[in-house]
């Protein structure tokens, strides 16, 4: 943003700070939202909106739109990971630690490969192409999340009915 879109270092920094604050803020509201709306909609609708905003930012070339898109992107993805972990916990069998660790493992693989992949795209195709890729990924993920209720059961307390007991800890 500093090099390509001409934002000053402080403006680019402010965008990242706003992005982080948006994530924190939406997470504080996450449980309230999840109690009132279907979780797949909480994930899918902001994700598609964020993708649309990023597309618009690239097409219009407006810095303000790009900054707004970053904030909406933060609002969109802020609750994604907690909701995914929560759903995984609901769908898990007796040993949630192992089941959740699989999900966390996928997240870390994405954390490692994502920036590298986007860096390669940015290197060969430029920042606009990278943002369009992100926007496309957000739109596709949003559409995929809409099908989530077909795969993940709604959470119910202690529904697993499977016992797993260890008693050797001191």
């Amino acid at each position, binding site marked *: 943003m500093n090099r390509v879109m001409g934002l000053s270092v402080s403006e680019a920094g402010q965008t990242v700070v706003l992005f982080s*604050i948006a994530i924190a803020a939406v*997470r504080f509201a996450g449980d309230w939202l999840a109690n009132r709306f279907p979780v797949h909609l909480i994930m899918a609708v902001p994700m598609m909106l964020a993708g649309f905003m990023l597309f618009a930012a690239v097409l219009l070339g407006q810095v303000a739109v790009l900054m707004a898109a970053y904030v909406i992107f933060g609002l969109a993805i802020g609750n994604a990971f907690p909701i995914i*972990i929560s759903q995984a916990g609901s769908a898990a069998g007796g*040993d949630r630690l*192992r089941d959740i660790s699989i999900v*966390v*493992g996928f997240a870390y693989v994405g954390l490692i490969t994502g920036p590298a992949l986007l860096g390669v795209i940015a290197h060969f195709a430029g920042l606009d192409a990278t943002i369009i890729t992100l926007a496309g990924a957000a739109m596709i993920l949003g559409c995929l999340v809409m099908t989530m209720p077909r795969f993940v059961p709604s959470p*119910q307390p202690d529904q697993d009915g499977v016992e*797993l007991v260890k008693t050797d800890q001191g």
Partner: protein
Amino acid sequence: MAATHLAAARRSICAGFFGLGTFMGMWGVMIPERVASLGLSELTLGLFLLVIGLSLCAAIFCVNRFVIFQDAVQLIRVISAFYVLGFAVVLTTGSVMMLFLIGIVTGFAAGFVDAGLNSQASEWEQHSGRRGMSFFHALFSLGSLSGAALLTLMLSLDLPVKWVIYGSAVLVGGGLAMRRQWVGTQTIAGTAANADIDVGADNSGSPAADTAAARPARQLTLPRSACRCQLCCFWDCVLRWQPCQKAALWTGRHCI
């Protein structure tokens, strides 16, 4: 499980997420200082981040594969000390070799503690019947912002950050190690110190239910469709994109 115990467990989980986030935020602020003081190139820094990421993934593999790492409470209480001290060394060391060596330890510790805390948060949701995962992760974000703000303030005032980092490490690591109330640590006799785990057991709180929960898990012969082995779980989770049903009756063999 008693409401008071669940409330205490919630505070423990909150402290864990906040503590983890604090050090992650500190790391974000200290990256430019680390690059400058250790003379790291972009390639070296990228390599370091890759090493941490791979260590994290290795830790997740260990949690999934080895029984010794499948106790969430012990993972949090013991390994969080390695996590915070590892971060403290990474943020203050003057040696590139030490940075990489401790980075590996820190990556492993982060993977263990992250898996353990998320598991505890999920257990809390299941036992309490309430949603709380977003709030726990919000505390991680808040901790991250707080850690970043604290070190930014210290750096802007030209104050030494070393003792703040080590002080935070002792506070967070010691605090988590001392916490005894976690989900599943309420024992039959009511002594939380024994830290029994009754994952997914009856939560009615009745003595009969607790006694039943103390029985060892039964080994059942499963039909092919209900096999819980790694291969079938991978097939269910990844290829067929269905909820995973494995682990509770893990035998280590394919399709008993």
